[in-house]
């Protein structure tokens, strides 16, 4: 199977869906002439022209709203946020327009739109540019929230998101764009709402999503060297969440670590833990442990940033803790 980058996987998904459906267009800052701030849309302007690959002014609220309007009357917009940090400016349109219109209109107007872009921290970008928004978005009924962690999932899920008749928030990872993985040549879709067991073990379940899938896999590798074999459950979609997959894994391993990139309070992990206590209470051999960003805005200094971020050592420590090894 060909091995390609996460960036190319996203690019191919965009391209294939734009070829397949001429109602699909891409709009955002620097997506056209500059080929995308992270080069995801490279070459698309040349192939599809300026009506379908549109550079905007820096006006997130405006073009997110424009996308919702266009979607209400039959187009299928893909709205790129240069990063999700800037999507905060558009949150009103995502929440109050995109997510609510179907319900408010008594089912008359659906909003088939994708909001996508990189989410979470890269390196030393400090407080305003290093934030994970999936728990905010997952809070909203009327949205789907997708956080692929591998090239395979990125492509398959983006194609599903574009074909979905609902608003989908699609959260990529800046640090993932250069990562590589197997992606088949032939067409495939990854269904929204289905988790994936990325690695099988019996000692503990690491439940995670997005960029943290990589962290979990690295932690699992290191743990395996000590004879500790863990399940890595990649949620892939955080709304709707694959509750059965979580239960299946935890009922098998009897222990869980929930790893997420964002903050602790009201984070994705809090929801996962709730599902675990509902469905797996009698199976648990230890309290669930969460790994997440320190409860502070992201600092700039290298050492402070390292201390603030969830990482492999913290994940390993959490697994050892739920196994009562330390």
């Amino acid at each position, binding site marked *: 199977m060909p091995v390609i980058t996460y960036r190319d996987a996203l690019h191919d998904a965009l391209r294939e869906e734009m070829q397949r459906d001429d109602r699909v267009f891409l709009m955002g800052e620097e997506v056209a*002439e500059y080929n995308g701030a992270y080069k995801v849309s490279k070459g698309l302007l040349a192939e599809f022209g300026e009506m379908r690959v549109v*550079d905007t002014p820096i006006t997130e609220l405006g073009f997110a709203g424009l996308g919702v309007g266009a979607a209400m009357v039959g187009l299928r917009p893909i709205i790129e946020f240069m990063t999700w940090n800037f999507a905060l400016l558009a949150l009103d349109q995502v929440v109050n327009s995109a997510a609510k219109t179907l319900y408010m209109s008594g089912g008359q107007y659906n909003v088939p739109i994708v909001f996508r872009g990189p989410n979470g921290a890269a390196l030393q970008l400090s407080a305003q540019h290093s934030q994970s928004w999936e728990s905010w978005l997952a809070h909203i009924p009327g949205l789907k929230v997708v956080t692929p962690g591998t090239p395979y999932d990125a492509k398959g899920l983006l194609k599903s998101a574009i074909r979905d008749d609902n608003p989908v928030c699609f959260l990529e990872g800046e640090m993932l764009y250069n990562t590589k993985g197997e992606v088949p040549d032939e067409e495939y879709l990854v269904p929204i709402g289905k988790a994936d067991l990325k690695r099988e073990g019996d000692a503990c379940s690491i439940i995670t999503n997005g960029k943290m899938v990589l962290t979990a896999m690295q932690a699992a590798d290191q743990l395996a060297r000590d004879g500790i074999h863990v399940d890595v459950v990649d949620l892939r979609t955080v709304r709707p969440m694959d509750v059965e997959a979580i239960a299946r894994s935890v009922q098998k391993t009897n222990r869980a670590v929930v790893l997420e990139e964002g903050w602790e309070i009201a984070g994705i992990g809090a929801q996962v833990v709730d599902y675990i206590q509902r469905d797996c209470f009698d199976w648990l051999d230890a309290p669930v442990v969460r790994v997440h960003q320190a409860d502070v*805005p992201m600092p700039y200094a290298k050492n402070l940033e390292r201390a603030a971020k969830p990482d492999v050592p913290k994940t390993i420590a959490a697994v050892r803790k739920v196994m009562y090894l330390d």
Partner: protein
Amino acid sequence: MATKKKSTPKSDAALDRKLLHDMLLQRRFEERAAEAYALGKIGGFCHLYIGQEAVSAGTQSALRPDDYVITTYRDHGQALVRGIAPRAVMAELFGRVDGCVHGKGGSMHMFDRNVNFLGGHGIVGAHVPLATGVGFAIKYRGGDQVCVCYMGESVVNTGAFHEALNMAGLWKLPVVYVIENNRYGMGTAVERASAITDLFKRAEAYNIVGAEVDGQDVLAVRETMTEAVDRARTEQVPTLLEVRTFRYVGHSMSDAASGTYRSKAELEESEKRDPIVLFRRHLQEIGALTDAEYQKLDDELRAAVQDAWDFADQSPEPPLETLFEDVLVETPSDAMAGV
């Protein structure tokens, strides 16, 4: 509506000296910052100001120490001219405890309460309403200070800009909004982003004064800014001042200076109007500066920047316990006591 100004050279030797000093300090500082970035001493996003030095030097020379300054992530130059020590700016870039925000902010987020420097802000447009709020507070307190808000030309297309300037015009707040029009917002030329390209004309929509000035001519910048600041201080009339300038470097360290969205020829053409070269030439023509004097100043500034580098290099990393400091301030318990 004020129009283009040509410089009307006044021979104020001390002022000339200061303007030259401020411009050259920024240039020399940022050349070294670029070097430090390449060596990995600076991380994250780093947006240099090279080419725009006359804007900060010229506009800020019209301010009083008790006025306020707020700007974007492209903030090193503004910070230095406002009087934050090169050591503190460089140490911040290096992510060290002696930085002006102790390593918490980095390149994009310089602050210094001592000089009323209200920050470098990372979200395009977001700081413009803050400036309007500072203007509101000045008026509220009955003061005669002025707030200056710097922004890139892309900012005029944001909703925040529109909302903020409308309020400033409505309530007559002492704010000077300075557009640093360097022609590009990342890779997007101004004419591909704004429906009108004489950006100062937007002032009309807010019933405030609009003006434009050549941003490579430091004396012209100073003169036009002085009028705007006076207007704000004495009449509470806000101004939208468009300063036409260039950046001679990429948008940030990961962006090439030319080749993608602008040609090498365009860049080279703009470099002919290097603000430092132009001002030096002007001073020499009027007999206010010799080569030796310029050389001496340059040597001093290079040494000052080297000193900042050495200082930053030796400054420790912030202690780990500071990670959890400054998330909230303590409210004194008597303030929380019931009445």
